[in-house]
């Protein structure tokens, strides 16, 4: 059940330039799945809307979720000021999450670009922990960064094989995540991806060309976060079951979509 609730800041630190790493204690952790997100409310002057931030990691034992965010505007700038012991107001858990079951017996690759990297960490972790019939054949991570500030890379290495691409070539493959896929000849049956739209478009083409199943996590401006305002839609190839037009709500039917269903 979705809730608006107070979450206790456990810790906050800087991961890379302008990138913050925040752990929150909240009852929402119980149901949180990778690929889902929460809405975080700034309290500052005259801001009303929750900021959608993906769940980067879940620590069920501690009832904690981890958010990794980039400072881009007034809301995220405010979030940097919170310290352990402070409360933040969050709305969650929102969205559908990655369909991990689609990786059963498959070579799964999680791909993240820029601030799309964080949600793939919990995804990779859970994929690697699946057992029995649900277990993927393999799990690899391909993460794309601007430069050598490869935040979270150490943690990806602990849960899966990691390949890195950087725009400036300072670490790993010079180029983007698909350049790394090709250069390192990474094989995939199913891709879970999050990142900027050009990257997602390229992944969709790549997946289609190579007969790979791809699940893409999208971003859009949101107001309600719960499916009520119809602010956050994306174009779909087929008529969407809820909207009855070729639009799906990213906050509710998404943010993760089967690439085949998306008209990017």
């Amino acid at each position, binding site marked *: *059940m*979705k*809730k*608006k609730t107070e979450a206790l800041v456990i810790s906050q630190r800087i991961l890379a330039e302008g990138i913050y790493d925040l752990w929150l204690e909240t009852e929402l952790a119980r149901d949180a799945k990778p690929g889902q997100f929460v809405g975080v*409310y700034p309290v500052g*002057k*005259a*801001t*009303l*809307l*929750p900021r959608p931030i993906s769940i980067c990691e879940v620590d069920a034992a501690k009832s904690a979720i981890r958010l990794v965010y980039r400072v881009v505007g007034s809301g995220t700038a405010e979030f940097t000021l919170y310290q352990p012991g402070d409360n933040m107001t969050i*709305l969650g858990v929102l969205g559908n999450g990655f369909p991990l079951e689609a990786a059963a017996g498959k070579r799964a690759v999680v791909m993240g670009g820029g601030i799309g990297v964080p949600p793939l960490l919990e995804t990779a972790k859970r994929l690697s922990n699946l057992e029995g019939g649900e277990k993927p054949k393999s799990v690899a991570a391909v993460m794309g960064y601007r430069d050598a500030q490869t935040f979270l890379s150490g943690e990806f290495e602990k849960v899966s094989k990691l390949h890195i691409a950087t725009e400036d070539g300072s670490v790993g493959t010079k180029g983007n995540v698909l350049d790394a896929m090709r250069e390192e000849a990474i094989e995939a049956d199913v891709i879970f991806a999050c990142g900027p739209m050009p990257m997602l478009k390229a992944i969709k083409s790549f997946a289609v060309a190579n007969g790979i199943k791809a699940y893409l996590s999208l971003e*859009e*401006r*949101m*107001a*309600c*976060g*719960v*499916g*009520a*305002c*119809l*602010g*956050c*839609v*994306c174009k779909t190839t087929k008529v969407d079951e*809820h*909207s*009855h*037009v*070729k*639009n799906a709500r990213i906050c*509710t039917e998404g943010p993760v979509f089967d690439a085949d269903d998306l008209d990017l």
Partner: protein
Amino acid sequence: MNTAVEIAGVKFKNPVMTASGTFGSGMEYSDFVDLNRLGAVVTKGVANVPWEGNPTPRVAEVYGGMLNAIGLQNPGIDVFVERDLEFLKKYDTKVIVNVCGKSVSDYLDVVERLSDEAVDMLEINVSCPNVKEGAIAFGQKVSALFDITSEIKRIAKQPVIMKLSPNVTSIAEMAKAAEAAGADAISLINTITGMKIDIHKRKFALANKTGGLSGPAIKPVAVRMVYEASHAVNIPVIGMGGIANAEDAIEFIMAGATAVAVGAMNFHDPYTTINVIEGIEAYMKQYGVQDINELRGIV
């Protein structure tokens, strides 16, 4: 203590409704709000056929409010009746269906289709794009408003609320036109047309360029219009625009509203409607107000 209000023979357990388009069909907020406690659920606008709405970005935050240019995306009346009305039947609350259309006949189709459905009232959104009359919507011209209201009243089986646009020179004239054409009530305000430009990207924040402004920023304008409209007509007025708490709701009631609706603030706090209901009761208790209807237009 009585919090019930009546509009055109329909009795609401309290004066607090949801503003169309901000609460889905109720379903989306049912995790947060016990719909049984609401005076009414006012649904998202529905047309005779499915509408795709506008391209994204469709929403943008601004100081004390937001802009939206959803473009009235909706699944069409058939799906709406089967799914959304069916869902709402489970609840002990009044159901008001918000209707939109591009031509008069679009509206009439929807109104007719709802004749025998479990709908308590119709709310007609005359701020939809009107293809025939060009850029000006039905809600911005006295004669167009009069005509569409008359046509709808001729066939409507449920009482009709005309939802007025604030983007007019005289809200009193519009209210009078709706009343003269037979409207059973009016609701206001719809959003005020606004614009936001991202100066770093040098482009509009909304794909549609303009969008409707809602939220606390518009409250003083909304209160003024509710006051003017309710003094211009004898039919009940449903007030909305930036209501965030019970004080705001009471302000609208004192300005002349019989009922109020919570819109954009649902996005800020999904519990707003319930807080408003409880806050009104607390206010009544504090000041010994026996009947909410005593507060209407008291100022």
